[in-house]
């Protein structure tokens, strides 16, 4: 009998960067970037076989530096972008680049060699996102639902829109916007909205959340003091176009309606330390996953502000499907916002959580979190 025990995948190095492979539609696949100052960093491609509860992995070398952020192209399974630290004589610079993984790994289907260390493969550099003029890269985002040609990166106080040309071998800065203001303003994170024809981007700097129009590169809204302290992460509700979740150092997770930014729609205060990451489940947006440096990952059920305020219908055959061991008693519960699960298995801070895009049988999915020091990988089965 399958139980709630997480599937744990150990990494050799510490890691902060985690992303689901956006272009993959069949397998539950995540990419993890490691952080090591001394050794060649790696990108782990992790496939989760949810039927057999088995993890398949492939490792790619990422030699240029430790990876702070990673994102996979929505159009091409083999393309990904990373933000990495480049250290050169007492200077640390965060750069960004677009990479292609070797063809045979794209599918992820083949068995990994037994001794992966002997023939680790290397990523092929497609192009750098030249940031010499703009400062440290905080984050790279692909255009969601796009053709994998457009990227936005956040560098210090600049919002840069890139066009990938000549089969991604060249990145051209097509537009940019700068954040003006007193003091050193720095973007900490951002998110590209999948709504409005992908013309909106939300960014966070310090305690402020800003929305941008990618066509004009103008600010369209600004939530001052969205959090009491630094805003760490953002995510758009995949199904409700004006809804945005944010989290930050004040231990709170807030939900916003960007049409009315004076007050958050909802605030969660479940964590006891900085909340680093917030993610909506792609298929069921009432499920919100948060990871915090209090070593907890919390899965909340925010029915009241989801696109399915009346709960989703569970098909009968779904219930009878013997593979779905985690059939929810939840669907019978009254529709109230609640915490579905708190995962406390992490022994150190949790820096990244992601939900798989693939949601098999409508009730099976992976969520995955990445913890720092212990360098472990937990794959939780959700539902």
């Amino acid at each position: 009998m399958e139980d709630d025990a997480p599937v744990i995948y150990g990494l050799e190095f510490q890691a902060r960067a985690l992303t689901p492979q956006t272009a993959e539609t069949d397998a539950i696949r995540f990419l993890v970037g490691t952080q090591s100052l001394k050794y060649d960093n790696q990108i782990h491609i992790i496939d989760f076989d949810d039927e057999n509860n088995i993890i398949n992995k492939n490792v790619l070398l990422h030699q240029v530096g430790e990876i702070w952020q990673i994102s996979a192209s929505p159009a091409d399974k083999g393309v990904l972008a990373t933000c990495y630290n480049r250290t050169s004589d007492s200077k640390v610079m965060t750069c960004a680049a677009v990479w292609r993984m070797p063809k045979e790994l794209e599918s992820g289907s083949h068995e990994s060699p037994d001794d992966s260390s002997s023939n680790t493969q290397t990523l092929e550099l497609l192009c750098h996102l030249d940031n010499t003029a703009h400062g440290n890269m905080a984050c790279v985002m692909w255009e969601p639902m796009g053709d994998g040609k457009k990227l936005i990166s956040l560098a210090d106080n600049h919002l840069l829109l890139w066009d990938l040309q000549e089969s991604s071998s060249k990145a051209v800065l097509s537009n940019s916007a700068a954040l003006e203001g007193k003091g050193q303003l720095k973007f900490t994170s951002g998110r590209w909205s999948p709504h409005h024809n992908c013309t909106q981007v939300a960014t966070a700097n310090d305690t402020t959340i800003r929305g941008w129009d990618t066509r004009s590169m103008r600010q369209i809204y600004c939530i001052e003091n969205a959090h009491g302290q630094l805003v760490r992460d953002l995510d758009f509700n995949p199904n409700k176009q004006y809804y945005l979740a944010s989290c930050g150092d004040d231990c709170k997770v807030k939900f916003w309606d960007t049409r009315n930014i004076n007050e958050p729609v909802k605030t969660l205060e479940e964590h006891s330390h900085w909340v680093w990451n917030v993610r909506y489940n792609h298929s069921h947006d009432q499920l919100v996953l948060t990871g915090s440096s209090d070593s907890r990952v919390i899965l909340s059920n925010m029915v009241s502000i989801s696109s399915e305020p009346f709960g989703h219908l569970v098909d009968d055959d779904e219930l009878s499907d013997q593979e779905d061991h985690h059939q929810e008693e939840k669907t019978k519960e009254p529709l109230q916002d609640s915490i579905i699960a708190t995962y406390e298995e992490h022994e150190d801070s949790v820096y990244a959580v992601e939900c798989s895009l693939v949601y098999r049988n409508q009730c099976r999915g992976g969520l995955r979190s990445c913890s720092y020091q212990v360098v472990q990988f937990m794959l939780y089965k959700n539902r």
Partner: protein
Amino acid sequence: MLKLYYGLPDPAAGEAGRAADAGGPTDINGPRFDPEAFLTKLQKECPLAQLMDCETDMVKQIRALDSDMQTLVYENYNKFISATDTIRTMKNDFKRMEDEMDGLAANMAAITESSARVSSTLRDRHEQIAKLSGVHTLLRKLQFLLELPARLTRCVELEAYGTAVRYHGRARAVLHHYRHLPSFHGIQADCQVIMAGLAQRLRQRFRDGGSGAKDLAECVELLLELEEPAEELCDEFLAHAGARLAAELDTLEAELGPPGGAPTCDILEFTDRGCNSFVGNLCLVIASYQELFVSRAGAAPIAPMARAKLATFVEGLLGRYFGLVERRVQLEKGVGDSSLLVRALDRFHRRLQALEQLLPGAGSASEGTAIVERAARARVAQYLQALRGFYQDCLTDVRQALAAPRLAGKEGPGLAELLATVSASLLGQVKAVLGYVHLFTARDVAFSNKPYFKGEFCSQAVREGLVVGFIRAVCGTAQQFCEAPGDRGGTAPPALLLLLSRLCLDYETSTISYILTLADEQFLVQAEVAGTLGSVLCAEARAAAQRLLTHYVRVQGLAVSQMLRKSVETRDWVGTIEPRTVRAVMKRVVEDTTAIDVQVGLLYEEGVRKAQSSDSSKRTFSVYSSSRQQGRYAPSYTPSAPMDTNLLSNIQKLFSERIDIFSPVEFNKVSVLTGIVKISLKSFLECVRLRTFGRFGLQQVQVDCHYLQLYLWRFVGDEGLVHGLLDEIVASAAHRCLDPVPMEPSVVEVICERG
């Protein structure tokens, strides 16, 4: 006949058998004496001597009897002779009497005859006289009728309306009956004109109303006799009275003052005036009306109509009056002593009782009671509002007090005193308000006997509404400080959070039960009316205290975190120079923590520390002892086994307790400080992990951590926590270091001591 009478003792009788056979045939005196049987018996039974004796005896007796008989016969004979004489004289007397009777009968016949003669002669005369006297009466009546107009006029002139009406009343029927005769018709017309004038005058007088109630009553009576329609009269009477009463109400309304403005007189005066003028007059009107139209003899047919009219009339006026009173009561916004209000309401209520007695069924008393109830309820609500306001003011004062001394540079602005002040003034205010409210139920106030004031008012309005409401408000307001602020301005100063937390805790431990007991005793709240239990409130207060304290820890922890974060983020850790001193921010952290410690210490007890292990002081060094550090960092130098670092730290973690960054805070100083320090250090750790360090950067972190180590342990309950976190920070820094060469522990110590 006589023979029979004498014969009985006549035969020979012997006494011998008398005794032997009384009444038998041998008894000589018995009625069934048989001489043969007697003789036979004597002969058979007696000896000769006795027979001889018997014979002599019997002879003797016979002789005595014979002499007796002779005497009797003689006497009777004499009597008989005298009786014969008497009868003879009677016969003579009767004969004479018969003659005289005949004479009398003849005389009587003569008398009868003469009497018949006399009466027959007198009959004619008698008839004539009777006719004459009839004519006379008729003439008198006619004269009265003829004179009637003049007389009426004179009466009217003399204002003897009563007489006039009486005259007219007497003549009316006749005039009505003979109205086909021209002369009578004229008189009737005249009379009608005069009477119409009279009625007019009466009405005028009635309408003027200047005359007293008695006059008015007379008027109405006369008018009624004049067959004026009663309904109209009622209406007129009521309209007349209504106008006057309405004028009084207008005066009252004027005293309400302009809308929005202050009333011109206090509520007692207002009620007094209302009672005396309006209600008094209303009572008078009702009384006279009832006398006139309802209870007067002969008013029975119009009584129901009149009563209905009166009811509508009174209802309308009272409605307006109640409206005014209610408006006035609503204007009574004062939150101080409510005795004036209570007295005013009492008076109001009493007067209405009187009215109710006068006019039962008008519902005036119940309506009045309802007003009083509403007023009382509104008053209690106002008090609650005032209490809340007072509480808010207290908080504002506290905030100011907290803000002010800090400008002067003083630490710890007497939090304990502030708390005591707030607590005492709140309690005082609650007591005062309870006292004011208590007036509503005072024994000398009439309406306090109403069931509402006995039951619901005490239990619901006062206990639940006021007391429980206030306590809830205290906790609720306190909790609001945890919710709203923190994001967008208006942040409550942490000291206030602390103070409120303590306040709530105090409420939980003692104040709530005290206030509740006080209220229950004062208002005699019945036990069976289950109100909110004290324990529930206590739990609420405790929860509030907990939340406040937790929030305090969070706020303070995040404040320190923020400081640390900024300091870590803004520094270039790769290119930094060799550390010479502890960074200023660390000193600041220690200072702030000390300040918080002092602050918390003012309000909360010390709390329990974990028993310090004997080697705690040594541990300070052992953590950073070169041997351990070597052990930890060693794998970093050997490229062979990068996993070892993790393995080592993991194993180490297995043995050390897991650090719960935010365990629930207890109500004591150590727990609070532990929470704050934990949050701060955890944040420090996170910041360090986000940076890349050069060699000197690492060493600086080492120095800083050692410094914190030296000063922070004393604040926390379990110093192992601090050690663990600081270890972790240094380890993380080492891990993020490009050139991890740790500083010699001795040097670190020297730098720290110097700093």
